């Protein structure tokens, strides 16, 4: 029997054959999904795929690229966003 904390679907179940020939189930936390761009849904580079407890141990610069919208938008999408912002800014003047 697993411990009560492991009796959820958020745990992964690995079947392991022991040296005695029995099949046992090992429980481990599921890997979180890949971070994706909020606009084009492509996977982001520079954002680690780790559990939040492991992310806490990293430094701020290791968690996301150091630029506006870093970690939420990909680089071509930020470029397009900046260009559109620039256009809007000077339209009324």
């Amino acid at each position, binding site marked *: 029997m697993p411990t009560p904390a492991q009796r959820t679907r958020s745990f992964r179940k690995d079947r392991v054959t022991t040296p005695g020939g029995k099949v046992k189930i090992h429980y481990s936390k599921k890997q979180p999904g890949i971070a994706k761009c909020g606009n084009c849904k492509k996977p982001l580079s520079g954002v680690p795929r780790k559990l939040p407890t492991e992310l806490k141990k990293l430094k701020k610069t290791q968690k996301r690229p150091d630029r*506006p919208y870093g970690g939420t938008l990909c680089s071509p999408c930020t470029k397009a966003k900046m260009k559109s912002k620039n256009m809007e800014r000077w339209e009324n003047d």
Partner: protein
Amino acid sequence: MIEVGRVCMKTAGREAGKFCVILDVMEDGYVLVTGPKAATTVKRRKCSLHHVEPTPETVKIKKNATDDEVLAAYKQAGLFSKFGTKEPTAKDVEKAKDAERKRATKAKEEKAKPKAEKKEDKPEEKKAEPKKEEIKKEEKPKPKAEKKEKPKAEKKPAKSAAKKTTKKAKK
């Protein structure tokens, strides 16, 4: 659109979304640019034209003007209010200048010193490592070779003898 004195917005990197002024147009699609740093946090740097978006604003500046001249030109044009930023105080300007000086001195020291040290260090490590491996290699293979030779010599004849006996028995 792209000329000396044109105010631009940077669209890539850590300075994306900040304003800067073109100081010089180089060949191969590059541009010299400053915020200056005290005003908009854009460093004085060489920059690709792909990373710069021009705005309708211009400023009267000479080619390769200093940061102080650019700040004075901003005041005349009244661009700080349009950027939505405050005028940098004298303290901010001094801070930015000091930081640049420190960076320049550090870069000079690093260029001068560590190259010579690294060259001296690396070959020593390389020399030291292979010696250990050589010693290990010399020690290890000898016993293995002895072990392998003995059992093979003993086992093979025994097996072959056993096979022969069985074959003979079958016959």
